[in-house]
């Protein structure tokens, strides 16, 4: 499979102190790391693409570790995660699907294990497109306080022959979490759901 050619790396970190309610004792922190790579399959239909997914694993791990560092460096502080991809207009959404395995594997590896499926979003779009990366609790998908999303994007990407790969992580519940449901404290932690 082709090599991974990186054009650009972007890291975004949000510290959220409040959203009109009480100021949080510890700010809710949300971060994303984005890598803009060349799409080796742009402009033509290629049947056999799955191997590129393996080629992305080292990049995924580097991104997951980089994001944990940007969020303070402690993997144990990470409570929510998500991933996504924006494929440039000369590619297919299927190319973005190549990120499912390496993106998820990388975050589990870097976090020292996480049970819940990593929620994801992807699309084909033009330069400057924004993507809402869905976020859920790392060990139990049904934890309602941790359902969130982070909008990401880069004004000059993805070009037609590029893919923007994204990982997102959070350090807790939404800043004014009060919509009920399963709490993080009540997780059984057996099936990745509850």
């Amino acid at each position: 499979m082709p090599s991974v050619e990186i054009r650009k790396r972007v890291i975004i970190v949000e510290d959220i102190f409040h959203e009109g309610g009480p100021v949080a004792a510890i700010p809710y922190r949300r971060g994303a790391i984005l890598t803009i790579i060349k799409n080796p399959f742009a402009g033509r239909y290629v049947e056999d693409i799955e191997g590129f997914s393996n080629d992305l694993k080292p990049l995924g791990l580097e991104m997951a570790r980089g994001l944990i560092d940007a969020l303070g460096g402690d993997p144990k502080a990470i409570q929510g995660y998500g991933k996504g991809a924006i494929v440039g207009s000369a590619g297919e959404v299927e190319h973005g699907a190549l990120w499912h395995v390496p993106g998820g594997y990388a975050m589990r590896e870097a976090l020292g294990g996480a049970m819940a499926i990593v929620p994801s979003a992807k699309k084909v779009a033009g330069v400057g497109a924004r993507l809402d990366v869905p976020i859920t609790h790392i060990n139990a998908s049904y934890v309602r306080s941790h359902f969130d999303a982070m909008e990401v994007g880069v004004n000059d990407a993805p070009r037609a022959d590029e893919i923007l790969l994204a990982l997102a992580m959070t350090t807790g519940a939404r800043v004014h979490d009060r919509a009920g449901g399963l709490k993080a404290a009540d997780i059984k932690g057996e099936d990745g759901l509850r």
Partner: protein
Amino acid sequence: MKAKIRKIVTIVEETRTEMGRAIDPPTRRAAAVAVIENPFAGRYVEDLADLIDIGEELGDLLARRAVEALGVEGSEVESYGKAAAVGENGELEHAAAILHPKLGAPVRKALGKGAALIPSSKKRGGPSVALDVPLGHKDAAFVRSHFDGMEVRIADAPRANEIVVAVAVTDSGRPLPRVGGLTTAEIKGVDGLR
């Protein structure tokens, strides 16, 4: 602090290739962006002293955050810029009060130097409005390789009664600069221009 901060976002960008050419070392830039309450939203207030003081606070906070996100010493910063976006219930003059009288001194203090004017932009807009923060060399405004801009935006800000304030720093100029003009090697650094 006089500033009532809802959120702080940091963004780091690293460009490793451009048009297939390696950028070595990569060009890097960072922005720190605060979302604050506009104390004068919705009414005409003659005396903007509080916003001027808020500008001083934010100059210090955002410059330190941006330099930290870039991961360099303040003295290694090469160019800088600032910008503000005022929510719909505020005036452009509110952005001016934050940016122009007092924000610059603490920024320069964080960098150790900064003989040049800090280039700026401002606008009024709604949530997720894009701010193009102009960038110029910190010691000599005429250095042509460092004229640039960095787009920043926050999906949920500014709300009507908020102001988004950004400080951007770099440790490099544009990728592959080749349009001539004053070079960094020729800087005298006395008048802030050359």
